[in-house]
Protein backbone atom coordinates (compact mmCIF):
# COMPACT_ATOMS: atom_id res chain seq x y z
CA UNK A 1 0.00 0.00 0.00
CA UNK A 2 1.50 3.32 -1.01
CA UNK A 3 0.09 6.60 0.19
CA UNK A 4 -0.52 9.37 -2.37
CA UNK A 5 2.34 11.30 -0.79
CA UNK A 6 4.77 8.45 -1.33
CA UNK A 7 3.59 8.11 -4.94
CA UNK A 8 4.20 11.82 -5.49
CA UNK A 9 7.68 11.59 -4.04
CA UNK A 10 8.48 8.60 -6.24
CA UNK A 11 7.33 10.60 -9.26
CA UNK A 12 9.50 13.55 -8.19
CA UNK A 13 12.44 11.20 -7.76
CA UNK A 14 11.91 9.78 -11.26
CA UNK A 15 11.69 13.30 -12.69
CA UNK A 16 14.96 14.28 -11.00
CA UNK A 17 16.63 11.17 -12.38
CA UNK A 18 15.32 11.90 -15.88
CA UNK A 19 16.49 15.53 -15.69
CA UNK A 20 19.94 14.35 -14.64
CA UNK A 21 20.12 11.97 -17.58
CA UNK A 22 18.94 14.62 -20.07
CA UNK A 23 21.61 17.00 -18.75
CA UNK A 24 24.28 14.32 -19.04
CA UNK A 25 23.38 13.21 -22.58
CA UNK A 26 22.88 16.83 -23.66
CA UNK A 27 26.36 17.77 -22.44
CA UNK A 28 28.00 14.84 -24.23
CA UNK A 29 26.19 15.77 -27.46
CA UNK A 30 27.20 19.41 -27.01
CA UNK A 31 30.84 18.36 -26.72
CA UNK A 32 30.88 15.81 -29.53
CA UNK A 33 28.54 17.15 -32.20
CA UNK A 34 30.73 19.98 -33.56
CA UNK A 35 33.59 17.57 -34.12
CA UNK A 36 31.35 15.09 -35.95
CA UNK A 37 29.93 17.88 -38.13
CA UNK A 38 33.36 19.21 -39.10
CA UNK A 39 34.64 15.71 -39.91
CA UNK A 40 31.67 15.25 -42.28
CA UNK A 41 32.14 18.66 -43.87
CA UNK A 42 35.84 18.05 -44.50
CA UNK A 43 34.86 15.42 -47.08
CA UNK A 44 32.33 17.73 -48.76
CA UNK A 45 32.66 17.78 -52.55
CA UNK A 46 31.07 21.22 -52.98
CA UNK A 47 33.30 24.14 -53.82
CA UNK A 48 31.45 26.51 -51.50
CA UNK A 49 30.32 26.28 -47.91
CA UNK A 50 26.85 24.76 -48.19
CA UNK A 51 24.19 23.52 -45.84
CA UNK A 52 24.74 20.41 -43.76
CA UNK A 53 24.83 17.50 -44.61
CA UNK A 54 26.96 17.36 -47.77
CA UNK A 55 25.61 15.26 -50.67
CA UNK A 56 28.80 14.15 -52.38
CA UNK A 57 32.10 13.33 -50.77
CA UNK A 58 35.68 13.84 -51.96
CA UNK A 59 39.17 14.52 -50.70
CA UNK A 60 39.47 17.93 -52.40
CA UNK A 61 40.00 19.87 -49.15
CA UNK A 62 42.78 17.54 -48.09
CA UNK A 63 44.47 18.10 -51.46
CA UNK A 64 43.80 21.82 -51.01
CA UNK A 65 45.79 21.75 -47.80
CA UNK A 66 48.75 20.03 -49.45
CA UNK A 67 48.67 22.50 -52.35
CA UNK A 68 48.77 25.58 -50.13
CA UNK A 69 52.35 26.74 -49.47
CA UNK A 70 51.23 28.96 -46.57
CA UNK A 71 49.98 25.92 -44.66
CA UNK A 72 52.97 23.76 -45.48
CA UNK A 73 55.36 26.53 -44.42
CA UNK A 74 53.37 26.97 -41.24
CA UNK A 75 53.43 23.25 -40.56
CA UNK A 76 57.19 23.16 -41.04
CA UNK A 77 57.70 26.13 -38.70
CA UNK A 78 55.32 24.70 -36.11
CA UNK A 79 57.10 21.35 -36.01
CA UNK A 80 60.54 22.98 -35.87
CA UNK A 81 59.42 25.37 -33.14
CA UNK A 82 57.68 22.68 -31.06
CA UNK A 83 60.75 20.43 -31.30
CA UNK A 84 63.21 23.11 -30.19
CA UNK A 85 60.96 24.40 -27.39
CA UNK A 86 60.19 20.86 -26.16
CA UNK A 87 63.86 19.89 -26.17
CA UNK A 88 64.98 22.93 -24.17
CA UNK A 89 62.12 22.95 -21.70
CA UNK A 90 62.29 19.19 -21.12
CA UNK A 91 66.04 19.30 -20.51
CA UNK A 92 65.89 22.30 -18.17
CA UNK A 93 62.56 21.35 -16.60
CA UNK A 94 63.31 17.76 -15.73
CA UNK A 95 66.77 18.50 -14.28
CA UNK A 96 65.12 21.11 -12.09
CA UNK A 97 62.41 18.60 -11.13
CA UNK A 98 65.05 16.10 -9.96
CA UNK A 99 66.37 18.70 -7.51
CA UNK A 100 62.87 19.79 -6.48
CA UNK A 101 61.94 16.20 -5.64
CA UNK A 102 64.72 16.08 -3.06
CA UNK A 103 63.63 16.26 0.57
CA UNK A 104 62.99 19.64 2.16
CA UNK A 105 65.60 22.33 1.78
CA UNK A 106 65.39 26.07 2.26
CA UNK A 107 63.60 27.89 -0.55
CA UNK A 108 62.30 24.70 -2.20
CA UNK A 109 58.65 25.81 -2.12
CA UNK A 110 59.46 29.22 -3.55
CA UNK A 111 61.52 27.80 -6.42
CA UNK A 112 58.84 25.25 -7.27
CA UNK A 113 56.28 28.07 -7.39
CA UNK A 114 58.61 30.05 -9.64
CA UNK A 115 58.81 27.14 -12.10
CA UNK A 116 55.04 26.67 -12.17
CA UNK A 117 54.23 30.39 -12.33
CA UNK A 118 54.12 30.76 -16.16
CA UNK A 119 50.93 28.68 -16.02
CA UNK A 120 49.16 31.43 -14.12
CA UNK A 121 50.29 34.28 -16.34
CA UNK A 122 47.81 34.92 -19.19
CA UNK A 123 49.46 33.87 -22.47
CA UNK A 124 48.80 37.28 -24.03
CA UNK A 125 50.85 38.85 -21.25
CA UNK A 126 53.71 36.44 -21.98
CA UNK A 127 53.60 37.18 -25.70
CA UNK A 128 53.25 40.92 -25.19
CA UNK A 129 56.05 41.20 -22.62
CA UNK A 130 58.52 39.09 -24.61
CA UNK A 131 57.81 41.11 -27.75
CA UNK A 132 58.78 44.36 -26.01
CA UNK A 133 61.68 42.84 -24.13
CA UNK A 134 63.14 41.18 -27.25
CA UNK A 135 63.07 44.52 -29.07
CA UNK A 136 64.79 46.16 -26.10
CA UNK A 137 67.65 43.63 -26.22
CA UNK A 138 67.83 43.85 -30.03
CA UNK A 139 66.38 40.44 -30.86
CA UNK A 140 64.29 40.89 -33.99
CA UNK A 141 64.39 37.41 -35.50
CA UNK A 142 60.82 36.06 -35.28
CA UNK A 143 61.84 32.42 -34.89
CA UNK A 144 64.13 33.23 -31.94
CA UNK A 145 61.31 35.21 -30.34
CA UNK A 146 58.86 32.34 -30.88
CA UNK A 147 61.29 29.88 -29.28
CA UNK A 148 61.67 32.22 -26.29
CA UNK A 149 57.91 32.40 -25.79
CA UNK A 150 57.26 28.71 -26.30
CA UNK A 151 59.99 27.60 -23.88
CA UNK A 152 58.52 29.66 -21.08
CA UNK A 153 54.93 28.47 -21.60
CA UNK A 154 55.93 24.79 -21.75
CA UNK A 155 58.37 24.61 -18.84
CA UNK A 156 55.73 24.32 -16.05
CA UNK A 157 54.38 21.20 -17.74
CA UNK A 158 57.74 19.42 -18.03
CA UNK A 159 58.63 20.31 -14.41
CA UNK A 160 55.28 19.19 -13.10
CA UNK A 161 55.11 15.89 -15.03
CA UNK A 162 58.63 14.84 -13.99
CA UNK A 163 58.02 15.93 -10.42
CA UNK A 164 54.79 13.90 -10.25
CA UNK A 165 56.57 10.73 -11.39
CA UNK A 166 59.42 11.27 -8.88
CA UNK A 167 57.20 12.01 -5.91
CA UNK A 168 55.25 8.84 -6.55
CA UNK A 169 58.50 6.87 -6.65
CA UNK A 170 59.79 5.32 -3.47
CA UNK A 171 62.90 7.13 -2.30
CA UNK A 172 63.97 3.95 -0.56
CA UNK A 173 64.84 2.44 -3.96
CA UNK A 174 67.56 5.03 -4.61
CA UNK A 175 68.74 4.79 -1.02
CA UNK A 176 68.92 1.02 -1.27
CA UNK A 177 71.20 1.29 -4.28
CA UNK A 178 73.46 3.72 -2.41
CA UNK A 179 73.55 1.56 0.71
CA UNK A 180 74.52 -1.41 -1.46
CA UNK A 181 77.62 0.52 -2.45
CA UNK A 182 76.59 2.32 -5.64
CA UNK A 183 78.01 5.83 -5.95
CA UNK A 184 75.19 8.44 -5.96
CA UNK A 185 75.61 9.20 -9.69
CA UNK A 186 75.35 5.45 -10.42
CA UNK A 187 72.18 5.17 -8.33
CA UNK A 188 70.78 8.17 -10.20
CA UNK A 189 71.56 6.75 -13.66
CA UNK A 190 70.49 3.18 -12.95
CA UNK A 191 67.55 3.66 -10.57
CA UNK A 192 66.11 7.18 -10.49
CA UNK A 193 66.35 8.01 -14.20
CA UNK A 194 64.65 4.87 -15.57
CA UNK A 195 61.85 5.22 -13.01
CA UNK A 196 61.27 8.88 -13.91
CA UNK A 197 61.25 8.14 -17.64
CA UNK A 198 57.46 8.04 -18.03
CA UNK A 199 57.17 11.42 -16.31
CA UNK A 200 59.82 12.99 -18.54
CA UNK A 201 58.18 11.56 -21.67
CA UNK A 202 54.69 12.64 -20.57
CA UNK A 203 55.99 16.16 -19.88
CA UNK A 204 57.68 16.32 -23.28
CA UNK A 205 54.47 15.16 -25.02
CA UNK A 206 52.41 17.79 -23.22
CA UNK A 207 54.98 20.46 -24.06
CA UNK A 208 54.95 19.49 -27.73
CA UNK A 209 51.14 19.45 -27.93
CA UNK A 210 50.90 22.81 -26.16
CA UNK A 211 53.50 24.46 -28.34
CA UNK A 212 52.03 23.02 -31.53
CA UNK A 213 48.59 24.48 -30.80
CA UNK A 214 49.59 27.82 -29.27
CA UNK A 215 48.01 30.91 -30.83
CA UNK A 216 48.21 33.91 -28.48
CA UNK A 217 51.96 33.86 -27.83
CA UNK A 218 52.72 33.05 -31.48
CA UNK A 219 50.52 35.83 -32.82
CA UNK A 220 52.50 38.44 -30.88
CA UNK A 221 55.92 37.00 -31.67
CA UNK A 222 55.61 35.89 -35.31
CA UNK A 223 55.70 38.23 -38.29
CA UNK A 224 54.23 38.18 -41.80
CA UNK A 225 56.99 35.89 -43.08
CA UNK A 226 57.37 33.45 -40.20
CA UNK A 227 53.99 31.94 -39.46
CA UNK A 228 53.01 28.86 -37.51
CA UNK A 229 50.24 26.52 -38.65
CA UNK A 230 47.68 27.64 -36.02
CA UNK A 231 48.31 31.28 -36.99
CA UNK A 232 47.79 30.48 -40.68
CA UNK A 233 44.59 28.61 -39.82
CA UNK A 234 43.22 31.43 -37.66
CA UNK A 235 43.98 33.93 -40.41
CA UNK A 236 42.12 31.73 -42.91
CA UNK A 237 39.14 31.33 -40.58
CA UNK A 238 38.85 35.06 -40.04
CA UNK A 239 39.21 35.92 -43.73
CA UNK A 240 36.96 33.36 -45.39
CA UNK A 241 35.43 30.20 -44.12
CA UNK A 242 36.90 27.51 -46.21
CA UNK A 243 36.76 23.81 -45.68
CA UNK A 244 40.53 23.28 -45.80
CA UNK A 245 40.48 24.06 -42.09
CA UNK A 246 37.91 21.27 -41.64
CA UNK A 247 40.37 18.86 -43.25
CA UNK A 248 43.13 19.96 -40.88
CA UNK A 249 40.73 19.72 -37.91
CA UNK A 250 39.86 16.16 -38.91
CA UNK A 251 43.52 15.21 -39.02
CA UNK A 252 43.97 16.83 -35.58
CA UNK A 253 40.95 14.92 -34.23
CA UNK A 254 42.33 11.64 -35.59
CA UNK A 255 45.71 12.29 -33.96
CA UNK A 256 43.95 13.12 -30.69
CA UNK A 257 41.98 9.86 -30.71
CA UNK A 258 45.21 8.01 -31.40
CA UNK A 259 46.94 9.71 -28.45
CA UNK A 260 44.06 8.94 -26.08
CA UNK A 261 43.90 5.29 -27.17
CA UNK A 262 47.68 5.02 -26.77
CA UNK A 263 47.48 6.63 -23.35
CA UNK A 264 44.79 4.17 -22.33
CA UNK A 265 46.78 1.19 -23.63
CA UNK A 266 50.05 2.39 -22.05
CA UNK A 267 48.91 3.42 -18.59
CA UNK A 268 45.11 3.23 -18.54
CA UNK A 269 42.98 6.34 -18.34
CA UNK A 270 42.12 5.43 -14.75
CA UNK A 271 45.76 5.83 -13.79
CA UNK A 272 45.99 9.19 -15.55
CA UNK A 273 43.02 10.51 -13.56
CA UNK A 274 43.48 8.46 -10.44
CA UNK A 275 40.85 6.26 -8.86
CA UNK A 276 40.23 8.34 -5.76
CA UNK A 277 39.99 7.21 -2.17
CA UNK A 278 36.92 4.98 -2.30
CA UNK A 279 37.38 2.67 -5.24
Amino acid sequence: MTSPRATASIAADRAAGALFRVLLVGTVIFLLLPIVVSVFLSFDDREYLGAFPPKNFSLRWYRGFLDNPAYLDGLKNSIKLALVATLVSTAAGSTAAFVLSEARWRGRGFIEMLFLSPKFVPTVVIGFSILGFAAAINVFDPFTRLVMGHIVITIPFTVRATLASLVGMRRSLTEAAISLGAPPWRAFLDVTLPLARTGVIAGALMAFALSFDEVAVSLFLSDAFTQTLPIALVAEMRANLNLTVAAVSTVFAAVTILVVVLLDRLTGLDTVIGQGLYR
Partner: protein
Amino acid sequence: MPTTTLRWALLAPGLAIIAALLVAPIGFMVVQSFHPFVAGRVGSGSGWTLTNYAELIGPAYAFYFYDTFRIGFIVSALAVALGAPLAWTAARTRRRPLRVALLGLLIGLLFMSLVAKLYAIQMTWGSTGPLAFFGTLIGIPARSAQYAEVQVMIGLLHFVLPVAALILIGTFQNINPRLEEAAASLGAERARVALDVTIPLALPGLVSAFMIAFAMCISNFVVPLVLGRGVVLFTTNLMYTRLTEIANYPSGAAIGIVMLVLAGAIVCTMTLIASRLTPGARP
Protein backbone atom coordinates in the same frame (compact mmCIF):
# COMPACT_ATOMS: atom_id res chain seq x y z
CA MET B 1 72.28 13.43 -1.72
CA PRO B 2 73.63 16.14 -4.00
CA THR B 3 75.65 18.92 -2.46
CA THR B 4 74.35 22.48 -2.43
CA THR B 5 76.62 23.43 -5.34
CA LEU B 6 75.38 20.56 -7.47
CA ARG B 7 71.80 21.40 -6.57
CA TRP B 8 72.14 24.99 -7.80
CA ALA B 9 74.03 23.86 -10.88
CA LEU B 10 71.13 21.58 -11.82
CA LEU B 11 68.57 24.31 -11.13
CA ALA B 12 70.55 26.97 -13.01
CA PRO B 13 69.31 26.35 -16.60
CA GLY B 14 65.67 26.37 -15.54
CA LEU B 15 66.08 29.39 -13.30
CA ALA B 16 67.91 31.23 -16.08
CA ILE B 17 64.97 30.55 -18.39
CA ILE B 18 62.44 31.84 -15.87
CA ALA B 19 64.56 34.91 -15.14
CA ALA B 20 65.26 35.80 -18.76
CA LEU B 21 61.93 34.89 -20.35
CA LEU B 22 59.40 35.60 -17.62
CA VAL B 23 60.70 37.86 -14.86
CA ALA B 24 62.74 40.24 -17.02
CA PRO B 25 60.07 40.71 -19.75
CA ILE B 26 57.32 41.31 -17.20
CA GLY B 27 59.57 43.70 -15.29
CA PHE B 28 60.19 45.52 -18.57
CA MET B 29 56.44 45.66 -19.15
CA VAL B 30 55.81 47.12 -15.69
CA VAL B 31 58.33 49.89 -16.35
CA GLN B 32 56.86 50.57 -19.80
CA SER B 33 53.34 50.83 -18.42
CA PHE B 34 54.40 53.95 -16.48
CA HIS B 35 55.93 55.65 -19.53
CA PRO B 36 53.89 58.05 -21.68
CA PHE B 37 52.89 57.04 -25.20
CA VAL B 38 54.24 59.18 -28.04
CA ALA B 39 52.19 58.81 -31.21
CA GLY B 40 54.09 57.78 -34.31
CA ARG B 41 57.02 56.47 -32.35
CA VAL B 42 57.75 52.81 -31.72
CA GLY B 43 58.28 52.20 -28.04
CA SER B 44 57.50 54.78 -25.39
CA GLY B 45 58.41 58.31 -24.47
CA SER B 46 60.54 59.36 -21.54
CA GLY B 47 59.26 60.49 -18.17
CA TRP B 48 56.78 58.88 -15.84
CA THR B 49 53.01 58.92 -15.92
CA LEU B 50 49.89 57.16 -14.64
CA THR B 51 47.85 58.05 -17.76
CA ASN B 52 47.91 54.48 -19.08
CA TYR B 53 46.19 53.22 -15.96
CA ALA B 54 43.90 56.22 -15.52
CA GLU B 55 42.38 55.81 -18.98
CA LEU B 56 41.40 52.21 -18.17
CA ILE B 57 38.94 53.49 -15.58
CA GLY B 58 37.09 55.50 -18.24
CA PRO B 59 33.78 54.01 -19.40
CA ALA B 60 35.09 53.05 -22.85
CA TYR B 61 37.68 50.66 -21.40
CA ALA B 62 35.85 49.62 -18.26
CA PHE B 63 33.23 48.24 -20.63
CA TYR B 64 35.72 45.70 -22.05
CA PHE B 65 36.55 44.51 -18.56
CA TYR B 66 32.86 44.30 -17.71
CA ASP B 67 32.09 42.28 -20.86
CA THR B 68 35.00 39.92 -20.28
CA PHE B 69 33.96 39.28 -16.67
CA ARG B 70 30.28 38.92 -17.45
CA ILE B 71 30.83 36.35 -20.20
CA GLY B 72 33.46 34.55 -18.12
CA PHE B 73 31.07 34.35 -15.17
CA ILE B 74 28.16 32.92 -17.18
CA VAL B 75 30.37 30.39 -18.96
CA SER B 76 32.09 29.20 -15.76
CA ALA B 77 28.75 28.75 -13.99
CA LEU B 78 27.49 26.70 -16.96
CA ALA B 79 30.72 24.68 -17.04
CA VAL B 80 30.31 23.67 -13.40
CA ALA B 81 26.56 23.00 -13.76
CA LEU B 82 27.01 20.82 -16.86
CA GLY B 83 30.34 19.34 -15.85
CA ALA B 84 29.10 18.10 -12.47
CA PRO B 85 26.62 15.45 -13.74
CA LEU B 86 29.26 14.24 -16.19
CA ALA B 87 31.92 14.06 -13.48
CA TRP B 88 29.60 12.42 -10.96
CA THR B 89 28.64 9.73 -13.47
CA ALA B 90 32.28 9.05 -14.38
CA ALA B 91 33.22 8.89 -10.69
CA ARG B 92 30.33 6.71 -9.50
CA THR B 93 29.30 4.43 -12.36
CA ARG B 94 29.82 0.71 -11.92
CA ARG B 95 29.93 0.24 -15.69
CA ARG B 96 33.61 0.41 -16.55
CA PRO B 97 33.15 1.01 -20.31
CA LEU B 98 31.02 4.09 -19.54
CA ARG B 99 33.70 5.45 -17.20
CA VAL B 100 36.48 4.86 -19.72
CA ALA B 101 34.38 6.44 -22.51
CA LEU B 102 33.68 9.56 -20.44
CA LEU B 103 37.31 9.87 -19.34
CA GLY B 104 38.44 9.33 -22.93
CA LEU B 105 36.07 12.03 -24.18
CA LEU B 106 37.24 14.58 -21.59
CA ILE B 107 40.95 13.86 -21.97
CA GLY B 108 40.60 13.78 -25.76
CA LEU B 109 38.91 17.19 -25.75
CA LEU B 110 41.66 18.52 -23.51
CA PHE B 111 44.33 17.34 -25.94
CA MET B 112 42.50 18.39 -29.11
CA SER B 113 43.66 21.56 -30.81
CA LEU B 114 41.62 24.60 -29.73
CA VAL B 115 41.82 26.06 -33.23
CA ALA B 116 40.30 22.87 -34.66
CA LYS B 117 37.55 22.92 -32.01
CA LEU B 118 36.67 26.56 -32.67
CA TYR B 119 36.44 25.87 -36.37
CA ALA B 120 34.14 22.92 -35.70
CA ILE B 121 31.94 25.12 -33.50
CA GLN B 122 31.70 27.77 -36.18
CA MET B 123 30.71 25.11 -38.71
CA THR B 124 28.06 23.69 -36.39
CA TRP B 125 26.56 26.74 -34.67
CA GLY B 126 27.33 29.34 -37.35
CA SER B 127 24.74 30.63 -39.81
CA THR B 128 25.14 27.69 -42.24
CA GLY B 129 25.46 25.06 -39.54
CA PRO B 130 22.89 22.44 -38.53
CA LEU B 131 22.42 24.06 -35.10
CA ALA B 132 21.93 27.63 -36.36
CA PHE B 133 18.22 27.33 -35.53
CA PHE B 134 19.23 27.57 -31.85
CA GLY B 135 19.77 31.30 -32.33
CA THR B 136 16.26 31.80 -33.70
CA LEU B 137 14.97 29.71 -30.81
CA ILE B 138 16.40 32.06 -28.19
CA GLY B 139 15.52 35.16 -30.22
CA ILE B 140 19.04 35.98 -31.43
CA PRO B 141 19.17 35.00 -35.13
CA ALA B 142 22.47 33.46 -36.26
CA ARG B 143 23.12 36.33 -38.66
CA SER B 144 22.71 39.07 -36.06
CA ALA B 145 25.61 40.81 -34.37
CA GLN B 146 24.60 39.68 -30.88
CA TYR B 147 24.91 36.06 -31.96
CA ALA B 148 28.70 36.53 -31.89
CA GLU B 149 28.44 36.68 -28.11
CA VAL B 150 26.46 33.42 -28.05
CA GLN B 151 29.14 31.80 -30.18
CA VAL B 152 31.94 33.09 -27.96
CA MET B 153 30.13 31.59 -24.97
CA ILE B 154 29.73 28.25 -26.76
CA GLY B 155 33.42 28.29 -27.72
CA LEU B 156 34.58 29.12 -24.19
CA LEU B 157 32.25 26.53 -22.68
CA HIS B 158 33.70 23.89 -25.00
CA PHE B 159 37.16 24.96 -23.88
CA VAL B 160 36.61 24.99 -20.09
CA LEU B 161 33.97 22.25 -19.60
CA PRO B 162 36.42 19.32 -19.89
CA VAL B 163 38.77 21.01 -17.41
CA ALA B 164 35.96 21.68 -14.91
CA ALA B 165 34.63 18.12 -15.29
CA LEU B 166 38.07 16.56 -14.75
CA ILE B 167 38.59 18.61 -11.57
CA LEU B 168 35.14 17.54 -10.35
CA ILE B 169 35.84 13.85 -11.04
CA GLY B 170 38.64 14.11 -8.48
CA THR B 171 36.30 15.85 -6.05
CA PHE B 172 33.48 13.31 -6.32
CA GLN B 173 35.87 10.37 -6.14
CA ASN B 174 37.05 11.58 -2.77
CA ILE B 175 33.56 11.82 -1.29
CA ASN B 176 32.68 8.60 0.46
CA PRO B 177 29.83 6.94 -1.50
CA ARG B 178 28.66 5.38 1.79
CA LEU B 179 27.38 8.80 2.87
CA GLU B 180 25.13 9.05 -0.21
CA GLU B 181 23.99 5.46 0.29
CA ALA B 182 23.22 6.12 3.95
CA ALA B 183 21.05 9.13 3.09
CA ALA B 184 19.23 7.12 0.41
CA SER B 185 18.62 4.17 2.72
CA LEU B 186 17.13 6.57 5.27
CA GLY B 187 14.54 7.46 2.66
CA ALA B 188 15.97 10.59 1.01
CA GLU B 189 15.10 11.02 -2.67
CA ARG B 190 17.91 11.35 -5.16
CA ALA B 191 17.47 15.11 -5.50
CA ARG B 192 17.58 15.43 -1.69
CA VAL B 193 20.76 13.34 -1.50
CA ALA B 194 22.37 15.53 -4.15
CA LEU B 195 21.32 18.80 -2.47
CA ASP B 196 21.93 17.83 1.15
CA VAL B 197 24.88 15.44 0.97
CA THR B 198 26.81 15.46 -2.32
CA ILE B 199 26.81 19.17 -3.15
CA PRO B 200 27.79 20.45 0.34
CA LEU B 201 30.63 17.92 0.51
CA ALA B 202 31.75 18.80 -3.01
CA LEU B 203 31.61 22.57 -2.42
CA PRO B 204 35.39 23.18 -2.27
CA GLY B 205 35.80 21.29 -5.55
CA LEU B 206 32.87 23.10 -7.17
CA VAL B 207 34.35 26.45 -6.14
CA SER B 208 37.82 25.67 -7.43
CA ALA B 209 36.42 24.27 -10.69
CA PHE B 210 34.48 27.52 -11.11
CA MET B 211 37.50 29.69 -10.32
CA ILE B 212 39.82 27.81 -12.67
CA ALA B 213 37.21 27.98 -15.44
CA PHE B 214 36.78 31.70 -14.75
CA ALA B 215 40.51 32.37 -14.88
CA MET B 216 40.78 30.40 -18.13
CA CYS B 217 37.86 32.33 -19.67
CA ILE B 218 38.96 35.86 -18.86
CA SER B 219 42.54 35.28 -19.98
CA ASN B 220 41.47 33.61 -23.22
CA PHE B 221 42.44 35.30 -26.45
CA VAL B 222 41.72 32.95 -29.34
CA VAL B 223 38.00 32.29 -28.74
CA PRO B 224 36.86 35.93 -28.97
CA LEU B 225 39.39 36.53 -31.76
CA VAL B 226 37.93 33.79 -33.94
CA LEU B 227 34.27 33.60 -32.88
CA GLY B 228 33.74 37.19 -31.70
CA ARG B 229 33.68 38.58 -35.27
CA GLY B 230 34.99 41.89 -33.96
CA VAL B 231 31.78 42.40 -31.96
CA VAL B 232 32.94 40.68 -28.80
CA LEU B 233 36.36 41.84 -27.62
CA PHE B 234 38.00 40.65 -24.43
CA THR B 235 40.64 42.66 -22.59
CA THR B 236 43.20 40.29 -24.14
CA ASN B 237 42.06 41.30 -27.63
CA LEU B 238 42.15 44.95 -26.60
CA MET B 239 45.80 44.49 -25.63
CA TYR B 240 46.53 43.07 -29.07
CA THR B 241 44.75 45.83 -30.98
CA ARG B 242 46.47 48.53 -28.87
CA LEU B 243 49.70 47.15 -30.25
CA THR B 244 48.82 46.25 -33.84
CA GLU B 245 46.54 49.16 -34.67
CA ILE B 246 48.10 52.12 -32.91
CA ALA B 247 51.44 50.66 -31.71
CA ASN B 248 50.68 51.88 -28.19
CA TYR B 249 52.92 49.59 -26.16
CA PRO B 250 52.59 51.45 -22.81
CA SER B 251 48.80 51.28 -22.85
CA GLY B 252 48.82 47.57 -23.74
CA ALA B 253 51.35 47.02 -20.96
CA ALA B 254 49.04 48.68 -18.43
CA ILE B 255 46.16 46.41 -19.50
CA GLY B 256 48.50 43.43 -19.16
CA ILE B 257 49.55 44.41 -15.64
CA VAL B 258 45.92 44.82 -14.59
CA MET B 259 45.15 41.35 -16.01
CA LEU B 260 48.15 39.87 -14.22
CA VAL B 261 47.03 41.36 -10.90
CA LEU B 262 43.50 40.05 -11.46
CA ALA B 263 44.81 36.56 -12.30
CA GLY B 264 46.89 36.61 -9.12
CA ALA B 265 43.90 37.76 -7.07
CA ILE B 266 41.80 34.90 -8.45
CA VAL B 267 44.44 32.31 -7.55
CA CYS B 268 44.68 33.72 -4.01
CA THR B 269 40.91 33.88 -3.50
CA MET B 270 40.58 30.34 -4.80
CA THR B 271 43.15 28.97 -2.35
CA LEU B 272 41.52 30.88 0.48
CA ILE B 273 37.94 29.79 -0.29
CA ALA B 274 38.92 26.18 -0.93
CA SER B 275 40.74 25.94 2.41
CA ARG B 276 37.80 27.58 4.23
CA LEU B 277 35.23 25.24 2.70
CA THR B 278 37.11 21.99 3.16
CA PRO B 279 35.12 19.99 5.70
CA GLY B 280 37.10 19.48 8.87
CA ALA B 281 39.60 22.20 8.04
CA ARG B 282 38.06 24.51 10.64
CA PRO B 283 38.23 23.53 14.28
